[in-house]
């Protein structure tokens, strides 16, 4: 029964690894040598030297970090929860997927880089998996027993 939870945990951790890897790759595309040259001078920064297209990769990497740092932390906690504690972390994982999807669909709405599509595809897969009967039966075993009163259907009288 817990194999399903562990598998889910592994898939979540894989998502963390992929996103961290993406972040590292984005930061690595920035020309750090040039940045070092600017900042290690006499303490004066020429505004014209920092204003240019060479800064775009840094902006892109920083935005990526802003959008996805929160979800990555949630995914990490959820993944570890599933792997180590077997059943915890469903809500964290679901919220993280929602945040990732929102970021990909709205913040990257206009520019939408290639990795946004990959993230969307993986998130769709994870959303379906998290909401699948087998996973939810395992993780919500106690809480989802239907105890609520069923409403009646009326047509008039």
């Amino acid at each position, binding site marked *: 029964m817990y194999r399903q939870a562990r598998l889910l945990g592994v898939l979540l951790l894989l998502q963390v690894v992929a996103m961290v890897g993406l972040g590292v790759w984005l930061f690595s595309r920035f020309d750090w040598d040039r940045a070092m040259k600017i900042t290690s001078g006499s303490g004066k920064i020429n505004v014209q030297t920092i204003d240019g297209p060479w800064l775009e990769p840094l902006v892109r990497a920083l935005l990526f970090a802003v959008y996805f740092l929160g979800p990555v932390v949630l995914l990490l906690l959820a993944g570890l929860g599933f792997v180590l504690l077997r059943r915890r972390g469903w*809500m964290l994982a*679901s*919220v993280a*997927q*929602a945040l990732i*999807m*929102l970021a*990909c*669909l*709205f913040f990257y*709405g206009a520019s*939408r880089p290639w990795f946004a*599509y990959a993230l*969307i*595809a993986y*998130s*769709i897969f994870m*959303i*379906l998996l*998290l*909401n*699948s*009967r*087998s*996973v*939810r*039966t395992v993780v*919500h075993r106690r809480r*989802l027993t*239907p105890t*609520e*009163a*069923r*409403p*009646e*259907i*009326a*047509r*008039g*009288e």
Partner: protein
Amino acid sequence: MANEESVDARTAEALLRRFEPVIRFTKGEWFYPMDCEPYVDACSLWVARPDEDAVCVVPAGELTLEKLAQQPEDTTGAVHYLKIPNPKEDENRGRRARRSHTNPDWPKETFRAGRGRLARVGYISRLADALFSLMLLARGRVPGGDVEGGRVLYGRYMEEKQRFTYHGNVVRQDGWIVLRYWLFYAFNDWRSNVFGANDHEADWEKIFIYLSDSESGEVRPEWVAYAAHEETGDDLRRRWDDPELEKVGEHPVAYVCAGSHATRYFRGEYLTELAFPLPRAISVVRRILRRFWYVTLRQYAADEYREKSYEQFTIPFVDYGRGDGWAVGPGQDREWDPPRLMNPVPPWISEYRGLWGLYTRDPFQGEDAPAGPMYNRDKTISREWFDPVGWAGLDKVPTRAEELEVITGRQAEIEERRDLLRSELREKSGRLKALGMDAEATRDQSHLSKLHENQTRHIKELSGEVETLRAQLSDDEVLAESLEDHAESLRGGERPPAGAHIMHAARPVSEEETHAGRVAQLWASISIALVLVTLILIIAYERSHLLSALVFAIAVFAFIEAGFRRRLTRFIVSLNVALAIVGALVLLEHYFWSVIVLAVLAVGLYILWENLRELGR
């Protein structure tokens, strides 16, 4: 009725009085069960013909039960209906009477929904509720003045003397003695006074008690069935020895909901959904999507997924059966008056097929008054009248005295069938063996190949028949054993669980939901208005980011709502599903041709794989 036997009036009255129910009302109820005669005396009788204005055929003050039975001016398509006099119209006509006569001091108490009414249903429902109210302007509805008319009519009746009357009828059907308590209310004010779904003049509700003849010759109460809205079948009834069935001596206790007069077994507040059928096309699409989601994608469903033969849109309302108001019945503060007997069936029941109150021409019929105990609104005979046993799903249940007799008869029947099956099986087995030998003898002989083919086909057919017979025999053996065990337990005095027949019991909502917090209630009251104002502000000031702003605002409202309703999990799932659908569309749009190519490639590879497998065999 062909399948019913009537019971003489004296016996009927004695039985009705012996088991008459105790009814507990909700505080603030305006209308209690009354004798229908003073109601009819106060009403006028109208006839509505297709595409014509309704005509008054008997004015108020001249109508009697006898006249009602004559159903004058009946033609094809005509709908007869009663109409409660409108006190304002009376005043306009100059019929001013004493003040106490025109404006009775009634009701004594007003209904209070209490905290949490709106907090119990979600945005969609609240919005649908608002639309539903608006829709009432377009469809037929009972005018507000009619509630006042009902109040005045009933107030005068109660000012004269407080009387509580039921209409009783007793019949025998399929071994059962059915006591039918028909409760007549002057008005159903569920919408006007209790925030419910509908109003209509007149309301006929019912409580049935099912008795059987015991071995000692005494009658024995076995089941009761309380009517609630249009529910029928097993869920309606409770066994007499069910610990959940409240009784005062031999009198079952019923809780009547304020305004709607739906009758319940437990005190509390019930979520009742008013259902509207969806258009056929939408229904088909919804069914396909549901199947794809729950079966193909194996997504989680809180209730077990079931294919529905029809799809409907529902708006939830609350039915208040608190039982904190007046109690009517034996040993209570207010006792029943002698019942109006309907044994033999009086002509005003059997001959008057019209409605007992205003006909509003409402296409959903919710605002049209009901027909009498014997008829449906379309003038067909109602099931609870011609088949009271089947109405509560008791047609498959023998009385206690009949149980062992039914089992013995069934056992004899099964034994007889098993003998027949055995002999048929012996005969067919013998033929099968003979055919088997024939087929063995004709195998691998070229001149007998045609014969062999026929023999093989016959063997296959016969083998199938023998298999079916063996399965039937085996099923019958198991059934016979089960019947024997069941008979044994019945002989030992054991009874099956009292609630075993109930699939979906109507139960009140939990205490927790009933007493929603003050903030939750405040939020529920203002949220729809807030949503609308926010939408207007976004359209006015954030038109450049319209989509994003709308999505953000809706998400924030939905999140707050889910928090108050303790449904965060459901909210997250819904949000994720919506995002996944949008994401899938974005992927499809971006990779449209790649998806098509991949799909074609996958189909091609599948066909290739199948063909190669066939080659390899």
